[in-house]
């Protein structure tokens, strides 16, 4: 928290800089309107400026059960801001500059209007920090036809299959990628008997679907399934703890298993499970031993630098949604660096090409799957305080890249782009 004053100052500075750039860009942009691709660009005094939009909605912050976790009111956005700074540090040497156009709407704000505002400013790359339904609604707007959206939040597998869109790339990991990553690790441990405990949110049921699919793929056995039907305790009162202590043994009673796999994406109850279950067995899934695209516990592969840069900027640690937004903005930066181009079509072509590779602090290059636009990436297997492993696990083979053992591989994808 001691970083707050610093980060606020930095934010103000970056905003001021952004405003200055915008003012500088206005007259030149007017001159360029005749050129068809010019909408994506604005000319800076010294070089070309690439605009990247950020589209999200204000919402109440997730309240983590643990007091050690940060409460973030700017999840996602700070990742995009850090990547913008990284892009501009590199761009400095290539006479390229990047500007983030932030459209964070009020809780009941009209997302379509937000997209229109971005389009009116000439933005064609948009980082979408939106749930799945809002993302699809935006992707199908007429303005989005000449845009590329990055799904930096929604883990829904349908978005990578039946409901896929050619104008979306997914930097957020899908539920299937997370479940497969965890399943591979549990298979490697030979902890194959799973009891599944499912929360009440719609996302929890989808997470459970992904876990069932992963069990089939990697040899897990689901020995029991239960729904969480209890109230969660109040984290700040002793009555909460008393209730939860008597509720959890009931909720987890049943046939013996190796691991209790919990599906609780919002963190309503999952963190209370460990140490209170009926059977003395570990907890994994959305809490306990988790599969995640990013975690504070990772400092391997140069992760120290990313974590420390982020903490200086945001005054809190980097969360998976920040990481997905960072990947999205860095992807545009990487494409611009490699192609020396600023035109939208050139950059999009490169992002889709097999030459595209992004270093994402996970030990190998990240790239986009051509069949569904999903970014292939290693998935961390993390405990609450330590990194435990990284999937794909040794021994799960693939003819092209082991990374494609996580999530939907080409033959099983139901995505058919209507280009």
């Amino acid at each position: 928290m001691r970083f707050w004053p610093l980060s606020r100052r930095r934010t103000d500075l970056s905003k001021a800089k952004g405003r200055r750039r915008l003012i500088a860009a206005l007259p030149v942009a007017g001159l360029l309107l005749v050129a068809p691709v010019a909408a994506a660009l604005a000319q800076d005094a010294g070089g070309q400026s690439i605009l990247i939009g950020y589209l999200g909605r204000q919402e109440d912050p997730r309240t983590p059960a643990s007091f050690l976790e940060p409460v973030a009111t700017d999840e996602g956005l700070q990742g995009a801001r850090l990547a913008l700074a990284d892009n501009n540090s590199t761009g400095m040497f290539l006479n390229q500059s990047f500007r983030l156009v932030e459209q964070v709407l009020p809780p009941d704000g009209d997302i379509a209007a937000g997209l229109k505002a971005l389009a009116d400013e000439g933005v064609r790359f948009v980082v979408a920090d939106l749930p799945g339904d809002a993302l699809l609604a935006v992707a199908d707007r007429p303005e989005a036809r000449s845009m590329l959206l990055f799904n930096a939040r929604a883990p829904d597998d349908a978005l990578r299959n039946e409901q896929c869109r050619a104008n979306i790339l997914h930097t957020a990991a899908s539920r299937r990628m997370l479940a497969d990553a965890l399943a591979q690790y549990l298979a490697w441990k030979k902890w194959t008997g799973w009891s599944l405990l499912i929360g009440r949110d719609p996302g929890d049921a989808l997470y459970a679907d992904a876990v069932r699919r992963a069990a089939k793929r990697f040899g897990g056995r689901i020995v029991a399934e239960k729904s969480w039907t209890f109230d969660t305790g109040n984290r700040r009162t002793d009555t909460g703890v008393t209730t939860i202590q008597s509720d959890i043994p009931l909720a987890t009673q049943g046939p013996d298993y190796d691991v209790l796999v919990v599906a609780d994406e919002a963190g309503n109850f999952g963190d209370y499970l460990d140490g209170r279950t009926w059977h003395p067995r570990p907890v994994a899934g959305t809490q306990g031993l988790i599969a995640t695209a990013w975690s504070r516990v990772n400092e391997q592969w140069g992760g120290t630098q990313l974590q420390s840069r982020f903490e200086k900027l945001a005054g809190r640690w980097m969360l998976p949604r920040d990481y997905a937004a960072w990947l999205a903005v860095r992807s545009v930066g990487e494409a611009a660096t490699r192609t020396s181009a600023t035109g939208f079509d050139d950059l999009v072509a490169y992002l889709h090409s097999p030459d595209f590779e992004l270093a994402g602090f996970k030990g190998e290059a990240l790239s986009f799957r051509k069949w569904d636009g999903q970014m292939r990436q290693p998935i961390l297997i993390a405990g609450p305080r330590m990194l435990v492993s990284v999937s794909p696990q040794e021994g799960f083979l693939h003819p092209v890249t082991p990374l494609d053992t996580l999530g939907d591989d080409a033959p099983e994808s139901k995505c058919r782009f209507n280009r």
Partner: protein
Amino acid sequence: MRSLLCTMLFLAAPVLIAEPVLAETIFVSNEKDNQIAVVDGDSLQITNKIKVGRRPRGITLSGDGTQLYVCAGDDNRVDVVDIASGKVVHSLPSGPDPELFVLSPDGNRLYVANEDDNMVTIIDIPSRKAIGNIQVGVEPEGMGISPDGKILVNTSETTNMAHFIDTEKRAVVGNVLVDSRPRVARFSDDGKHVWVSSEIGGTVSVIDAGTRKVVKKIRFEVTGVRREAIQAVGIQMTRDGKRAFVALGPANRIAEIDTESFEVKRYFLVGQRVWNLAFSPDEKRLYTTNGISNDLSVIDLERNKVIKSIAVGGAPWGVVVKP
């Protein structure tokens, strides 16, 4: 066992004396142990462990060969070790998180990459002071210097560039884009080329130092090792400029490259996650630091064989040889 070893050494001693004696000493920075392991080049035994600052990685010999400079990343300083006494005698102000550095050919300046700060710090060794900074790309790492000391090359891991820096003007004068996560930059002894390894890209870019263009990209392929595990890191070249050796990280291999054809001639299987490498003064041996298996591999370059592995301590990273 020890007595047997002693006997063997005793028996071997006259033979060694009859041949030109390999009197070199090998210094290895152990990232996890916060120590420098000292290995005797004759016996290939550890003779001392020198305690230094936290997370020692980059290591180099002073111009007169009497001292070691060691980047202690977690202590934000460069430790100076007196070799004769085996002790840290003082520290140099390196700026935050120093990982790698390079010594100017006259031995008076250290150029340090500050990984956390997008900066290269210049240290004046006689006055023990930081005398300047140069802004570079995101996560500066590798440092190479031209034989005449006029051009410094720094790599930045997230910007993916080799920055050419004029050491007089202390300014970036050129930038060359290379593959992902560039780690090490090394000038050829004739000053004509700069070799830059890319860890995630798994390649080495050979840059013409005059035109600052990539003239060759060297790729590696090892049967049975997946492409993602081939991660180029440390680079060394023989004095005659004919052979180059590249450490391939988690591929656990050293590649030998013919510098005329840029073809990979052979791969040596060494310990796990090989980071860096150094020649013996006669260039008949190559020593490699293997970060996961905690050992130093010794490659006999006359017989093209890995002849020994020496347990040196926790997470060996850098290596330097004193004649």
